[in-house]
């Protein structure tokens, strides 16, 4: 059916889709599955999701473009979401964001030349009590300091290169 997902993954998604009230209920799950395999959701990914869910590509795209954790453009292998909401702001989020831009040598929205990190702002991560916070991929990092950020970037980069 597609190179975007393996036949096993497609079978599993179809099983899940058959088990819910209405197929489109699983639109986020299907888009996340495509994204997990490919890093982002391309037009072909939208078409695949539409086929699996019995929807038109437009119906899928209007949902995909709504959510900020679904990427409709290519991103690095690790997306860094830096919280810029009020609690993090009170505890140095601007410093964190500035330092990340400097350390990675990219502007917000850009990807490092080695293709590893993409830097994006995000709304509150629900970690306000341990501000400032950021999320890299599925990992939440809180109580950030400049030294910690450097160590985290090193670890994450090494993991990506493995």
């Amino acid at each position: 059916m597609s190179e975007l997902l393996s036949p096993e993954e497609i079978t599993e998604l179809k099983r899940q889709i058959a088990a819910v009230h209405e197929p489109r209920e699983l639109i986020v799950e299907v888009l996340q599955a495509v994204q997990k395999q490919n890093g982002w959701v391309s037009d072909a990914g939208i078409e695949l999701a539409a086929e699996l869910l019995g929807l038109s590509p437009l119906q899928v795209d209007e949902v995909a473009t709504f959510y900020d954790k679904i990427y409709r453009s290519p991103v690095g292998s690790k997306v860094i979401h830096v919280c810029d909401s009020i609690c993090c702001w009170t505890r140095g989020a601007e410093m964190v964001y500035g330092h990340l831009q400097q350390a990675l040598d990219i502007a917000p929205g850009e990807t490092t030349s080695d293709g590893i990190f993409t830097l994006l702002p995000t709304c509150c991560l629900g970690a306000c009590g341990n501000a400032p916070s950021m999320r890299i991929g599925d990992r939440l990092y809180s109580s950030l300091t400049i030294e910690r950020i450097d160590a985290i970037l090193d670890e994450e980069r090494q993991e990506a290169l493995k």
Partner: protein
Amino acid sequence: MSQLLFKNRRPDHTVLLDEYRQNGGYQGLEKALREMQPAQIRDEVKASGLRGRGGAGFSTGLKWSFFPFDAEGDKYLVCNGDEMEPGTFKDRQLLEADPHQLVEGMALSAYALNINTGYIFLRYAYNQCYTNLLQAIADAKQAGLLGRNILGSEFSFELHVHRSAGRYICGEETALLNGLEGKRPNPRSKPPFPAIKGLFAKPTVLNNIETLANIPHIINGGAQWFSDLALTEEGAGTKLYGLAGHLNNPGCVELPMGITLGELVEEHGGGVWLGRKFKACLPGGASTPYLTADHFDVAMDYNPLEAVKTRLGTGGLVVFDDQTCMVAATLNLMRFFARESCGWCTPCRDGLPMVCWVLEKIESGQGTVDDVTMLKELLGHINGRSFCALALGAMGPVDGLLRLFEEEVLDHVKKGRCPLQKS
């Protein structure tokens, strides 16, 4: 001090089924199924005085009373676990520590409302909560506490978890329903209200995680006991208060409803950091108008906070020290709301960026007195004219800024720069 929701909470620990039951878990559900009629539970919840913990503070018992529980056919119970209001992180703490409370609370509520299917709408970023919930649901099912014929009774209840992919508007109840159905999560027009036409166009009750987690405690302890936990006359129960911003001890604490702002800041938050002074706070999340140190005696409960023109919201307190520029803080908040606008209606889609633009101008020292007047006008143009409550909430901090800090705003204009900027 009474701990209900955080009774079993310990650092880096999740309470699983056995431990939950050893500490009295699922006794409320057992008691309800063996001894109580659904109507008795609804009465108890109403009498307890519980008000919704999702932000609006509507009476839970009253909301339930609008629900057509006798209607034939599918009806749904939906738990709102989107939690994206900056300053709000209580529901996450609850699910990370003791997830069965929500499962039991939903089963109990579903029994009371004659509902057989429930959904938990959970923010995608909450991985740990998701894992915890899946395990709690599987364990409860295995033990006969969920699924078909719960504890040998006639009552069956299936519980599903739906994950979202992160937009603040998904917390608005009708947008949430669209999101859950796999549609673009713009809000729906009301009426009809979800109680009549909600998920899949069927009668639906929507409640917040903390609200639902309180139900087993109400059934175990009784309405009067629950109501008496509060320090205020009309208040009820305990509250999970978030502590964030310029405090020495940020975190999330469970305290009796109605503790004063001063006690919350000084005792539980450890006072303002770096030895600085308290300047202002958002009492209940990003969409609540500010309070100052003059309000330290005010009880952190719905009515007392409304009396001082703000709201308890989600109970997420965000403190600002005396070196904070309130124009800059408000600008940060407004950028959040402008970015999170779903774009459906003009006052919000175009009005909020306009507010940001004016605040940016004032903060950078380029503002005039006319700009301050414009802010006041925008308040009137946006409040009460938007399709959903996002824009109204967004204007809360602007309202507070103009009421409590007008001089500081005008000082920016007079000096041609931010008066608090260290140059």
